């Protein structure tokens, strides 16, 4: 046969073998989970071990394999599997209940009866064997019994052969009594066993799309999906999420009003969350049913702040970070005068944060919402309009940053993550980013000590003349989980979420610099620069325009703004005029509903 055909044949055989293994994999797995009769030679008692009841939870996450957050979560999920399995099986051994007896007889007792004659013969052969073969024969006999689902404790290789033989004799005597009905079945104990498995799907930021076919077919739908609240909103819209403040069928309390099982069981789970963070889990779009429901359990939150390199600040003679916007501009000038780039960025990445934060500080988030979605009673009119003097001032300041050359020259052509690399290499003094930057630059500080880099951060500067409550407010976005309606293990899934909310935040905070949404959690030491402001903030603005106007943001606001932000020269009035026109058309068309 020519070599080619030989190779082809080998390939086909291999493919066949893989396919056969795959097809029978489930059966092989099942084989390992057969009921067993366990004999404790010491106590002379039998135990009926049923196959472990399987509890399978599917957990799909926005974190990809290898991400620091994933590693922490994975560790705690593994612990949950053990602890929850033990908790579910916590009831003590008891006599086989009447309902289980037919199964005991069919699965265990009958095969044991059938095995008795051969067992006697083999044991006789063992007794007759010389001392040198006894140990080996005892082990073979134990293995033979195990294949018949009879396990005897005390026949492991470590015990002396004579002792193993006695144990086997004790087993034979016990089995004979059991088979003849001298040991009633209710003297056989049954040990409940539960095997909890959490199937992890580390699918990265595209977790929703990755699971879309499963939602469509209703098969293997994740019980839990982890992601950002704004992104997971799509699931609520299509009625795939379980409201956490409504009792599940057959239960008196909602999950949130039930006990904080894994934390402090004396209080409701709801009390474990920072209230404003939990409220952020409400469905944001005006909808008579879903609007008032909490669908999202927030676990961590993110805030945006301005990160700075302490070494470069010192070099520029700046001894403390700025508190107000004019101070911030002055700091930029001072850094620039010292020959250092004040700010770095990757094109438009996070550029919208300058806009949102400044508007929140100068006008407040409600004003932005009224401008985008229309004023009270006048849903088709922006109030205030984009051409309002305060917007002009805000965007004028953003333009000022560009016009005065506060960003490094290369920012308009750099692609993520070049800016943070440059920042960590000491080529710019500041960078606006999310609190996750600490984690992304993890280990960089130590490695980069020679390059003069010491990471610190400060809160977004206050806006003189703005409302006082907007100056002390914090802005946060939340990340957490939704429990899916189509999942097969909803109750167990909620237990997992409760477990994570109670257990994994110390690691999240200290190892990953994540801000926890739980009341009892510490604040990440790596974000000390914003800790006081964040923790003392009387209001935390958790919303984002994308929550209530996703299409407007995607089609109008962000593209128009990015064009303005990146342009080498642009007029504020021209930009606001354009935005006003597009915004008016959007509202005239019925806002978000106009896209339907």
């Amino acid at each position, binding site marked *: 046969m020519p070599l080619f055909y030989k190779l082809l044949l080998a390939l086909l055989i291999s493919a066949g073998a893989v396919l056969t293994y795959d097809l029978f994999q489930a059966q092989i797995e099942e084989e390992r989970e057969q009921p067993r009769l366990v004999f404790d030679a010491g106590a002379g008692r039998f135990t009926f071990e049923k196959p472990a009841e399987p509890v399978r939870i599917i957990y799909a996450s*926005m974190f990809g394999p290898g991400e620091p957050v994933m590693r922490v979560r994975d560790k705690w999920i593994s612990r949950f599997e053990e602890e929850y399995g033990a908790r579910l099986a916590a009831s003590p051994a008891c006599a086989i209940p009447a309902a289980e007896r037919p199964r005991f007889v069919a699965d265990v007792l009958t095969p044991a009866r059938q095995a008795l004659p051969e067992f006697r013969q083999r044991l006789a052969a063992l007794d007759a064997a010389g001392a040198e073969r006894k140990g080996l024969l005892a082990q073979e006999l134990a293995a033979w019994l195990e294949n018949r689902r009879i396990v005897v404790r005390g026949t492991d290789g470590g015990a002396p052969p004579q002792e193993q033989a006695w144990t086997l004799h004790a087993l034979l005597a016990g089995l004979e009594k059991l088979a003849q009905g001298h040991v009633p079945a209710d003297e056989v104990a049954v040990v409940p066993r539960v095997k909890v498995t959490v199937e992890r799907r580390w699918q990265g*930021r*595209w*977790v*929703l*799309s990755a699971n*879309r076919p499963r*939602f*469509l077919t209703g098969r293997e739908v994740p019980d839990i999906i982890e*992601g950002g609240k*704004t*992104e997971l*909103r*799509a*699931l609520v*819209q*299509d*009625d*795939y999420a379980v409201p956490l403040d409504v009792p599940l069928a057959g239960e008196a309390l909602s999950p949130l009003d039930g006990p904080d099982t894994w934390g402090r069981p004396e209080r409701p789970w709801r009390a474990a969350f920072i209230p404003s963070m939990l409220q952020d889990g409400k469905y944001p779009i005006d909808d008579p049913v879903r609007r008032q429901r909490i669908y999202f359990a927030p676990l961590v939150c993110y805030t945006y702040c301005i990160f700075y390199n302490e070494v470069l600040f010192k070099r520029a003679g700046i001894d403390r970070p700025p508190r107000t916007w004019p101070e911030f501009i002055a700091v930029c000038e001072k850094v620039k005068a010292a020959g250092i780039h004040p700010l*770095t960025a990757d*094109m*438009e*990445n996070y550029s919208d944060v300058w806009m949102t934060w400044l508007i929140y500080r100068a006008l407040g988030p409600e004003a932005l919402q009224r401008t985008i979605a229309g004023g009270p009673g006048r849903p088709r009119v922006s109030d205030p309009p984009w051409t309002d003097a305060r917007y002009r001032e805000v965007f004028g300041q953003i333009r000022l940053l560009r016009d005065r050359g506060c960003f*490094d*020259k*290369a*920012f*308009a*052509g*750099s*692609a*993520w993550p*070049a*800016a943070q*690399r*440059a920042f960590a290499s000491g*080529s710019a003094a500041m960078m606006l980013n999310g609190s996750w930057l600490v984690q992304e630059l993890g280990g960089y500080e130590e490695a980069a000590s020679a390059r003069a880099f010491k990471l610190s951060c400060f809160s977004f500067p206050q806006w003189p003349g703005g409302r006082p409550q907007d100056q002390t407010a914090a802005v946060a976005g939340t990340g957490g989980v939704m429990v899916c309606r189509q999942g097969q293990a909803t109750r167990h899934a909620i237990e997992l979420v409760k477990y994570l909310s109670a257990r994994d935040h110390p690691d999240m905070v200290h190892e990953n610099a994540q801000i926890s949404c739980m009341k009892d959690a510490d604040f990440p030491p790596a974000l000390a620069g914003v800790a006081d402001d964040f923790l003392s903030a009387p209001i935390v603005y958790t919303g984002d325009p*994308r929550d209530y106007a*996703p*299409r407007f943001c*995607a*089609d109008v606001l962000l*593209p128009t703004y*990015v064009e303005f932000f*990146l342009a080498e020269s642009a007029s504020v009035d021209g930009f606001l005029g354009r935005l006003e026109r597009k915004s008016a058309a959007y509202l005239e068309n019925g806002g978000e509903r106009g896209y*339907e």
Partner: protein
Amino acid sequence: MIVSKPRRLGGWWGAPALFLAPALVLFVVLFAFPAASSLYVSMCRWSGFTPHMEFVGLHTFGRLAADMKFWNALRNNFWIMGAGGVVFFGFALVFAAALNDRNLRGRKFFQTLIFFPSFISAVGVATFWKLLYDSKSGLLNLSLEGLGASPVQWLASDNAINAAVIMLVWAEVGGMMILLLAGMRRIPKDYYEAAEIDGASGGQRFLYVTVPMMREVMLIALSLWMIGSMKVFGFIQGLLAPDINDNCQVVSTLQYDYAFNNRRCIFLMGEATAMAVVQVAIVLVLVGIVRLLREKKSVEY
């Protein structure tokens, strides 16, 4: 004696139908049905998460027609096809002609060198070029600065598509060169010898012998380039993602954005599928035009 003709299985069409059935079933299941379904989806409002689709007819196409992002993306595809095509074919032809010269030393080496990028995956190529293009620490700008020239914002929204064209040409020219080279080697030597006897220079031989004789191969290559440049995805996504500026989208990346991008928080399966339908229609028209050109005149060796 009357001898009856042996009857064909199941009448005159039975046997062919039997033999054709497996292929036909596969064609219907794997191509015709999905294609028809796509056409249906393109006329529906659908997030892609629920089985429920709302049929809206040509409304999705109307939305697409009014969507500037789509027109920008289409323009970028045509730019890659046109401007990129000129550079691409230019290089491929020059390389092929050079390597067709049997007197060239190190022919195999150059051929491997030029073809080498074709071995690399789109993501690998894109990552490599992303690092080269980086305006802060990329090799290209460092070299330009070293030469005293001012740096270029390669990946800025105005330049990104041109930067992508350069990358595409680098990555794909090897494959095209091999195709053209194979075409050139099929041309009988007699023509060149006759032309040489007639006093034609090297350039003239290339222009008046090679190019006309390569017409068929070049039209096939042109079809391949058109299809490729209309469908280009991995290279652009790799170079410009995660947040591709609206000015730098091509149809496939925009399609992906509309259908799958969680970060936009909008899932427009209908519009995305409508884009795919338009894309296929454009490819069909263009390939149809090329076919017409091919049928007009055929070359015989």
